[in-house]
């Protein structure tokens, strides 16, 4: 039984990592390509290992920045996918944490209030909501507001910012397209909010009253007691929650389908934005070998990201 519990995990990770890493290695090419490109080094023998390392890092960098393949490409990378995933995940995690954490504090600290019970129930429900419905919701909201928002707020704002700060601003702020990174990040943050809130609430609820009294009597202001002293008392649980929540939204696909949509080019974040999970979803269902291969390559990278976050979270939780 114990084996059964972890067997699918190893099968899946094994399959994805094996096919994914071999696809990536094929794309990396030989580090010597890059070395041949350098002027000959009189000290080649002495610095051989160093040059090899630089060459490997360079081709890895190439892989991490190249575009994903069209059906007939032979060299490809995951550049836009990685950028989109990192941007939307980071934004979604930050917003989700900023809103989710106080909700958790409220439910955990003021659990005797009637409204706290309502909030707790709503958090429990939202955390289990099918993620596709959250994507659809954000899509509908953006359809509703986007025209007015662009006309009255974002266009003038971006014009002003561009004139003040230069053209680069347009990558981040500007009139939004129907699909954009911010809609994706918003959908991800709605998934993150109840998750962070739940873990925070149970951590705060487990603080003994004696510690709670100490916190209030040394900090005076309720805000400081709740958000500084008591947070320090449960910092590990909260950190774990933030990391696990980030790992969770980094791999989410369904909420991004109608919000970020996906892309195969580098695009401003105000337009349809690429993401690793979206590419896996799209490329795996095409009939072209090179795209399926790239889906596996992207999946391996996604797995590494998620596994790293997960491992750090578990270590942070255990460290005494």
């Amino acid at each position: 039984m114990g084996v059964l519990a972890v067997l699918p995990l190893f099968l899946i990770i094994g399959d994805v990592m094996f096919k994914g890493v071999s696809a990536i290695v094929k794309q990396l090419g030989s580090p010597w390509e890059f070395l041949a490109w350098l002027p000959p080094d009189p000290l080649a023998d002495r610095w051989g290992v160093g040059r090899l390392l630089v060459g490997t890092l360079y081709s890895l960098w190439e892989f991490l920045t190249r575009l994903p393949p069209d059906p007939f490409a032979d060299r490809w990378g995951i550049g836009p996918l990685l950028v989109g995933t990192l941007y939307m995940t980071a934004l979604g995690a930050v917003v989700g944490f900023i809103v989710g954490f106080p909700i958790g504090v409220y439910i955990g600290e003021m659990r005797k209030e009637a409204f706290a019970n309502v909030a707790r129930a709503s958090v429990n429900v939202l955390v289990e909501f099918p993620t596709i419905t959250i994507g659809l919701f954000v899509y509908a909201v953006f359809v509703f507001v986007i025209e007015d928002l662009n006309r009255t707020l974002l266009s003038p704002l971006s014009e002003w910012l561009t004139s003040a700060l230069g053209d680069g601003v347009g990558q981040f702020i500007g009139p939004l397209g129907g699909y954009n990174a911010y809609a994706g990040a918003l959908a991800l943050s709605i998934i993150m909010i109840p998750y962070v809130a739940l873990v925070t609430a149970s951590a705060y609820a487990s603080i003994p009253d004696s510690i709670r009294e100490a916190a209030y009597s040394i900090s005076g202001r309720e805000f400081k007691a709740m958000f500084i002293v008591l947070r320090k008392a449960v910092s590990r649980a909260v950190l774990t929650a933030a990391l696990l929540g980030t790992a969770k939204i980094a791999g989410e696909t369904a909420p991004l389908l109608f919000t970020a949509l996906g892309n195969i080019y580098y695009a401003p974040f105000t337009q349809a934005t690429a993401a690793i999970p979206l590419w896996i979803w799209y490329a795996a269902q095409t009939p072209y070998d090179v795209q399926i291969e790239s889906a596996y390559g992207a999946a391996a990278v996604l797995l590494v990201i998620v596994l790293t976050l997960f491992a750090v979270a578990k270590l942070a939780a255990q460290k005494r």
Partner: protein
Amino acid sequence: MAIFLVLFITFYLLSAFTLLFIKTRWGLRLIAAINVAIIAALVATFAWEALPLLERDGLAVFVNSDWDPPRESYGVLNALVGTLITSAIAITVAMPLAVGVAVTINEMLPQRLRGVFGALNDLTAAMPTVIYGLWGLFVLGPVLQSVVNTVSTWLGFGEVMTAPLTLFTAAILLAIMITPYAAAVIREGYALVPRHIEEAIYAIGATKFEAVLVKLRYVKNYIFGGLFLALGRAMGETVAVAMVVGGNFARFTLNPFESGITISSLIALQFPNAHSYQFMVPALFAGALLLAVVGLAINAVAIYILQRATT
């Protein structure tokens, strides 16, 4: 009109977070209300967006199995049945496994391995669903097809599974995905069995096996709670299912070994071209409404069971 909504939300957030520093309790209440508002807005939005079709067809949308966009005929019964079939099979397979996994991790394993296996179990529950889909598409589907066909041929039914991507494939993939999740809920309950009860069980001379049975009865609320939570997850899962279910929108089927469709995968697969038709967007929102309401009901039951278990 819409800009007022944006301004209101901005103003609300600013004042809630400012209030957090001044009148902490009121700030907290206002922020917590956001979560309640999201759920209300979500359901209201779906109802509103589905309204054109609901006005045209009434509730017939949910009992009509004909999905034919060119004729603007949209019935989600096909998908609803697909959702029910896949999640029923998934739950039937997953629950015994989940109980077994929870018991194994908490009872049979030495203390040192428990943490490791618990973490691996959590990881299985936390893996991106699209990766499950990828694996299901290229590994599980073909393997399942040959296994099922070998068995059915041996039994004399011939090759029942005609394609690798079927409702059954989706169901088995779902079972794999929800087992660790249900197991985690059961393990949570298991950890709450008081020491003195455990001692009492052994004190009356129970064998290990009998003790496990008694304890399982003690945590039965967690088992049912886990079951409903897992069911909710199985019914809502989108990407992994959509990748392996076969995407058969048109033909109504009750046979799990044929390709089919579920509500969530219907939405995921049809939405990209929904805007070419007049009523498809409302139809998909009607599906989402159904998903939300059913999900709400199932999770409410699960939460009720689990809250009764903890108090």
